């Protein structure tokens, strides 16, 4: 059709000289309008991006509060507890994924609902900002499908990122009534803060049957190797604070600890370390006498000296990431962002994305027992290697920790690689920073 219109164009000018002058201007104007219209139409029709960007118009503009409400009867079924023996070949229905030339799994997201119990009380917060970002990222990715029948993996829109914020039994019931639940087969749950007092389980306590868990702070005791995915605990500071990349090289402090809620025993050990090695070790704590208004989360103190957090992390070569009640700590993300080499002291912790990331290139893992030897262990690392670790740490943050989108896509890619192993991303692609 484009070609046809071009033919008219070439014939047009030949006709014009034969017309009367008074009509000529009129026809030329008319002709240009038609031509312009044609070009505009063509552009509009043939420019795929212009259509895509305009799809915003068609997306529903709704509020989170307007979503449908689902009432859970008290006796609605509860899934079995998570099955520790699950592996891809036993609990995952691979037939749903099929063979396709692109080797991409299809992910379906359930639409958002508000769940209430029999008395009309909310089961949990409808959705958190992070979980909304995560689902939005999946929805915008190549993995997404809106066709529930073609989906290989299902992501519930029930937000279980933080176990503290939900009612366990009712959440489980909400999961069980999802339309394709089927004992949780091929369902993926994202959780960052598992467990609760007093024993702080390292995996989400919500009964979830066969569902896969992308969990922050999983330990070797609860991790189903090759089935679950260990993910980082997202630090909201990543979005708020912009730390410019700082070149590798020596920094003011050698070891820095910035965590506020350390067990007194750990703090004693750290302070002993500081006493032995003086100025090069800095152990920060929460500030006790801050003027009102300043957010306590963004300040750290040492003997009355106030430091900005997370900026202070950039002043140190190594940053201690100790376990708290949970194994996964959001501070790991801040530390990586600052290009500080994390010294991870958390026995049995499965490091985030350890299935594909080579953490030995970006961190130092020290057994809890060896904490007193930390200084000499770190001293024995050659300077050249420290510089590479600093670069690698920052690169891990940029690629896999930076946003909920990065976390979501890395998780899906790991699952994708298990289903299409012959098309999997290689070690180098996961770990080598892009060439400078």
């Amino acid at each position, binding site marked *: *059709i484009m070609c046809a*219109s071009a033919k*008219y164009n070439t014939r047009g000018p030949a*006709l014009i000289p034969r017309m009367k002058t008074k009509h000529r201007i009129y026809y030329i104007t008319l002709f240009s309008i*038609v031509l312009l219209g*044609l070009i505009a*139409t063509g552009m509009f*029709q*043939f420019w*795929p991006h212009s*259509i895509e960007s305009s799809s*915003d118009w068609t997306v*529903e*503009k*709704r509020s*989170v509060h307007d979503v449908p409400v689902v009432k859970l009867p008290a006796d609605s079924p509860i899934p079995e507890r998570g099955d520790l023996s699950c592996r891809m070949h*036993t609990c995952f229905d691979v037939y749903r994924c099929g*063979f396709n030339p692109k080797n991409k799994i299809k992910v379906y997201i359930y639409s958002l609902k508000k769940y209430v119990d029999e008395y009309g009380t909310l089961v949990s917060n409808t959705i*958190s*900002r*992070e979980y*909304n970002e995560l*689902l939005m990222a999946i929805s915008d990715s190549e993995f*997404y499908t*809106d066709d529930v029948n073609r989906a290989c993996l299902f992501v519930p829109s029930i*937000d279980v990122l933080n176990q*503290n*914020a939900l009612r366990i039994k009712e959440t489980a019931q909400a999961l069980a009534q999802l339309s394709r639940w089927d004992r949780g087969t091929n369902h993926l749950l994202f959780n*960052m*803060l598992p467990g609760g007092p007093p024993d*702080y389980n390292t995996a989400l306590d919500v009964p979830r049957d066969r569902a896969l868990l992308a969990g922050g702070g999983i330990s070797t*005791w609860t*991790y189903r*190797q090759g089935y679950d995915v260990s993910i980082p605990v*997202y*630090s*909201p500071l990543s979005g708020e604070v912009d730390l410019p990349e700082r070149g590798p090289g020596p920094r003011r402090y050698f070891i820095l600890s910035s965590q506020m809620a350390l*067990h*007194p*025993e750990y703090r004693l050990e750290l302070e002993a370390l500081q006493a032995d090695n003086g100025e090069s070790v800095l152990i920060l704590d929460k500030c006790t006498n801050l003027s009102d208004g300043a957010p*306590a*989360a963004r300040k750290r103190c040492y003997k009355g000296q106030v430091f900005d957090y997370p900026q202070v992390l950039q002043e140190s070569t190594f940053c201690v990431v100790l376990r*708290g009640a*949970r194994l996964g700590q*959001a501070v790991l993300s801040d530390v990586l962002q600052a290009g500080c080499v994390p010294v991870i002291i958390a*026995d049995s912790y499965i490091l985030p994305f350890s299935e594909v990331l*080579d953490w*030995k*290139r970006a961190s130092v893992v*020290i057994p*809890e*027992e060896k904490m007193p030897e930390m200084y000499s*262990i770190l001293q*024995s690392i*050659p300077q*050249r290697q420290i510089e590479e670790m600093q670069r690698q740490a920052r690169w891990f943050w940029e690629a896999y920790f930076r946003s909920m989108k990065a976390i979501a896509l890395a998780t899906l890619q790991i699952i994708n690689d298990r289903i299409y*192993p*012959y098309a*999997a991303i290689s*070690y180098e692609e996961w770990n080598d920073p892009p060439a400078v």
Partner: protein
Amino acid sequence: MQTRKKYLFLTFLASWLLLFFFGGDQLRRFAFFSGRKAAARRSWPRWTDRSLLKSFADPEELQRDGDPSLPSPRERRAARLSFQRSSGCRMETCFDFSRCERNGFKVFTYPQERGQPVSETYGKILSSIERSRYHTPRPEEACLFILGIDTLDRDHLSGHYVRNVDEKIRGFPLWNGGRNHLIFNLYSGTWPGYTGELGFDVGQAMLAKASFDTQSFRPGFDVSIPLFPKEHPQRGGDRGWLYRDSVPPKKKYLLVFKGKRYLTGIGSGTRNALHHIHNGKDIISLTTCKHGKDWEKHKDTRCDKDNVDYERFDYQELLHNSTFCIVPRGRRLGSFRFLEALQAACIPVLLSDGWELPFAEAIDWGKAAVVASERLLLQIPSAVRCIHPERVLAFQQHTQFLWDAYFSSVDKIVHTTLEIIRDRLAPHRSRSRFLWNALPGGLLVLPDFSTHPGDFPFYYLQQGYSPSKKFTAFIRAVSQAGSLSQPILRLIQAVSGSQFCAQIVVLWSCETPPPPRGKWPQSSVPVTIVPGTRKLSDRFFPFGAIQTDAVLSLDEDSSLSTSEVDFAFSVWRSFPERIVGFSTQSHFWDPEQGRWGYTSKWTNELSIVLTTTAFYHRYYHSLFTELLPAGLRELVDGLAACEDILMNVLVAAVTKLPPIKVTQRKQHKEGVAQQADPSAPAGAEGTDGSPRFSRRQDCLDQLADWFGYMPLVSSQLRLDPVLFKDQVSILRKKYPSLEK
């Protein structure tokens, strides 16, 4: 005229409208099919109030995770240790690290019991451990214990099954609930279930087991080893079969399998289906039911036809001529086929759901094998067809690397197991996944030397590093006189004249103490004197004084000129993993005597470069002293003539490449050789009768025996400077003095 214009105008208008409403839409749907779909799909809604949503946890909550009233970490760890659960062991709960702190990683093997002979395979495993540098005969200094009872075959129907293991173990005073023990096993369970059980209580012992399934595997604690046949060589081992790359890397067949089909029982599901993908052309998948005693009782309608087809192809022929090989589970998860395919550079396509792959803690199997799903057998032909030729080539090459680095002999399998366990003891001083999966492999990379790839001679090209621009001259002084001899003074002069020389280290191996500082010649570079013992192997000790990557190894009577040093160093910078030197010798196979021969005659080949004047990487000092067991060094010291042969053999075993000879000044050729062999009575050649010559000959033989093969590689190459001996003005040449 007017009508014509009107029509024209109308045609325009009509075509415009048509284009707008139908044409464009149709066309666009055709051309941008997916794009349109993307636009139409229902994506996750952009909530109007999404910016008002609350965070999943407020910053305070994230940073104040946990409350101090929790049990103290020390108590928690102590509780964990006393918590006896063999099904749930991890290093930090079931392994006593303190045993390894005092004496390092030492392995003790229980003495074998009288009247209870072990199987040939277990004998090989035990002797591999005894050959390892970690072996200790004293249990009190051991960190890891290996049983003397043969636990390889735990199928109680088998002839090698050892009874009453439980009782025996409980009788061992060192058993200690299995703590710090490592138990090797190849066959577990029995007909019909073939479960993973061993038939005795392993307690807190680690398992190194073949056919491990992911569910009973205790991550970070157990080790999965490959199944290997009893003919597997103790040491050395055969090479892989990929001698040269073919591009494109296609072989006659795409995918092959030839093996048993189980009519009943576990594993039959997978093996029964294999014949479906057989197409008789490029995919050959043959099964037979003809095995076992009573196969005819269970036989089905396919059996007879299958058996006929089965005989038409030869397994070895298929293995040699196929790009991919199916490695399905047998009764157990692992099979011999896995190592066979790996050696044959036939890319394994694994059909063994839930198999914890051998050494998966260290090895990245995604680079060498296709891990397929038993359930998706029928997708395999199309999946492997879609793999790009360059990836196929990379797969093939990687199979060869893994075979040679970790699997080709029992020694390698056992040593890899030990190294994996050792790496767990100090996570901060362990090999990264990169080091395990790049040539020359994790066994040859000592994390005690460094954990940074740039400190080793192997990764310069790959990682974009370059070796240091300076070298250390390392001179071994042995002269009996208390003063400095003339040659050593001349040598220091010549070497320090080189612009690349960073320091001179003198190893003082004399009975008399070294002369005082003032007696040493003035030189532009620092001279360090390190005291040495009179052992010959001492010259390859990793002295802390050596600070550069390059070492120029010298004897006090070596004679060299500055330009020779400069040129040889520039050659070494191009080949940092090899020995670069001047005087050479070579080895050959002597068919008459049926042994390796050695000659120092001028021949057209070379395989040994004398380390009395040679450049090599500092790392080889560490390998020589730490990788080789003490016994081998004692052998060398005892023979007193072949530490340089051992060094050459070691470097050749690591790199699989010959050393490099560079040109030297003509007139002193004889002289150097003569001085290199001071004990040889008649000239440099070391004629057949001389005791030194025969000692070197013996040494070469014993080394080939220890390594299990002859690692030395011959070369016919000598490197000269450009313009060397060319008919141009001497002024234009970079190394004019080489020709004088």
